[in-house]
């Protein structure tokens, strides 16, 4: 899996981005103190990414991930639309909310796949190869 060549400054960040009607992309980073808490097993290594609908704040889904993974693809919940996520970590048997994301809008599925354009891909594959 490709990585950045140099580490980034340690900061708390949780970002949710739209990918397609079926998937969100989410990535997270931690400040030094929080990363230390994971390293020293203060927090369990498994985190939980909880997705909720932005409009009424109702819970939509929860997904487990490893804190070191740093990124994941999450299925868009059933109702689609605007969603937001929060990252929870387990300490002493209690889930603590560590990070909250921005809102992201899942695209609505539209049209037939072969009707949708892939204009730039076709061109750039040729031009830049």
């Amino acid at each position, binding site marked *: *899996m*490709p*990585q*950045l*060549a*140099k580490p*980034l*400054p340690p*900061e708390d*960040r949780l*970002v*949710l*981005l*739209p*990918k*397609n*009607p079926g998937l969100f*992309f989410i*990535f997270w*980073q931690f400040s030094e103190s929080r990363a230390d808490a994971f390293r020293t097993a203060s927090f369990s290594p498994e985190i939980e990414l909880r997705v909720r609908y932005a409009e009424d704040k109702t819970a939509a889904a929860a997904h487990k991930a490893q804190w070191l993974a*740093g*990124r994941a693809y999450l299925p868009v919940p059933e109702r689609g639309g605007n969603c937001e996520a929060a990252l929870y970590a387990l300490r002493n048997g209690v889930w603590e909310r560590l990070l909250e994301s*921005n809102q*992201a*809008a*899942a*695209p*609505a*599925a*539209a*049209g037939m*796949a072969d*009707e*949708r*354009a*892939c*204009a*730039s*891909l*076709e*061109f*750039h*594959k*040729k*031009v*830049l*190869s």
Partner: protein
Amino acid sequence: MSSRGSLMFVLHAHLPYVNHPEDSAFLEENWFFEAVVETYVPIISVLERLASEGIRPGVAVSISPTLGAMLENEALEDKLVLYVESRLELIEKELERAQDDPALLKTVKFYQKLYEDAAALMHKYSGDLITPLKALQYAGQIEIITTSATHAVLPLLARPEAVRAQLAAAAEDYEERFNRKPSGFWLPECAYEPRLNSYIKLSGFNYIFTESHSLDSAEPQAPGGVYSPYRTSNGLGLFARDAASSREVWSAKFGYPGDPAYREFYRDLGYDGDYEYVRPYLGSDGIRRPLGLKYYRITGPGADLSAKEYYDPEAALLRVEAHASDFLAKRMKQTDDFYASRGSRPLIVSCYDAELFGHWWFEGPAFLEAVIRKIRAERLPLQFILPSEYLNSCQEPPEITPGSSSWGENGYFDPWVNETNDFIYPAVYAATDKMIETANRFRNQDLSMLNSRALNQAARETLLAQSSDWAFLLYIGSHAEYAKGRLEAHAANAIKLLGEVIEKKVDEQALAALEQQNSVFPRLDFRVFASVSKF
């Protein structure tokens, strides 16, 4: 004859900002040189020729701010002159080599004219190709629009400040370059989501273009389909791309560019020629690369590269004429069908990457010219119309909110967010967040010249880190190391500069080097990134 429908052609010209003054022959700068010779010069020539004959082209041209900056960069202009001269030198040798091969000689002479024309046009405008475009717009022949500052895919910028900065920098850049406020905004990669409407409108733009399937999930339903303009609730005009007319041109498989008579893109003297013979024209690394002299035609579907036959420019032009006629016949049928069923005149919006015309589809500029000429010569009941003209003359368009979409593969944001490139986003957001935070901190402070310069350069670096091109190159696996390096460098530069300002120890020498290399948006004010922008 009165018009039965309108055609709107939009050519979106964009290249990532590539400027390496430290290297006399930097590989990726060739993208720019090739695009100038094969696309920008031929298109400008077509537009000027038509205008001089009293045939108004009526085409909208989107010039990305990064491309605009490269077209005005004197160091790149100097390198471009050397590039063209070196090709003409090689062509002289090729004329000698092809003496006993009439079919090849004809094509070499054709290239000689192409490069001589490029040299002549650049000489005419002292190397600045923005000048003829400005003149064409001033004369009402074309309409020039812009796109986000560094071609960022805006739905992937979660921070409103980042979206506003991309828009504000683009609007300011356009005004400086074209001496008027921009009206149209090209969404990079046609990537749209509804939250953008207010930012785009507040940045002073009047209309945008979206992909056709953005209307499938529009609220309420789009009554005229892609054949009608719309407006958003805040009065932003909206044109949807017509997929049918686009596909005929875009698709190598089903479209015109795949015709057997057209020039084959992949066979190039840079790969075919004797190594020692072509070596002086390759880069300093000596690696074989395209030299722009491509002597073969597509020949047939699936034909092996080694089995390609010689290109014949005259035979190709005959196919151009046939394809232009076919294109217009299909548009006539579209307009007739729409009129028969709806009783109103449709608008057909055809949007293309400009570099398709000439660079990849070598005959593309000739096709464009043939289409425009045929409408006049054959008195076809179609008219080319500019976006602003259409919006100014049409009735109040219906109000809709289109759905999120793009013109990329699968129609959403997959090409820019996937396993090959998602690792870049932490760097993009680290730079962006730090830039916003620092802009907020210093926005109302009296700053030394040095600190202002550092903050403004950090803003440039942040914008460059947000470019869609790095994610795309990583996705297609082409120049991936370069893309990764550029992305990381811009993010690191921004973070470093911002840190230096906060710690009051700006390295002036390093700053000056960055200002020279990444010299886009010379008058950019870092406050475009502030949370409540003064812009």
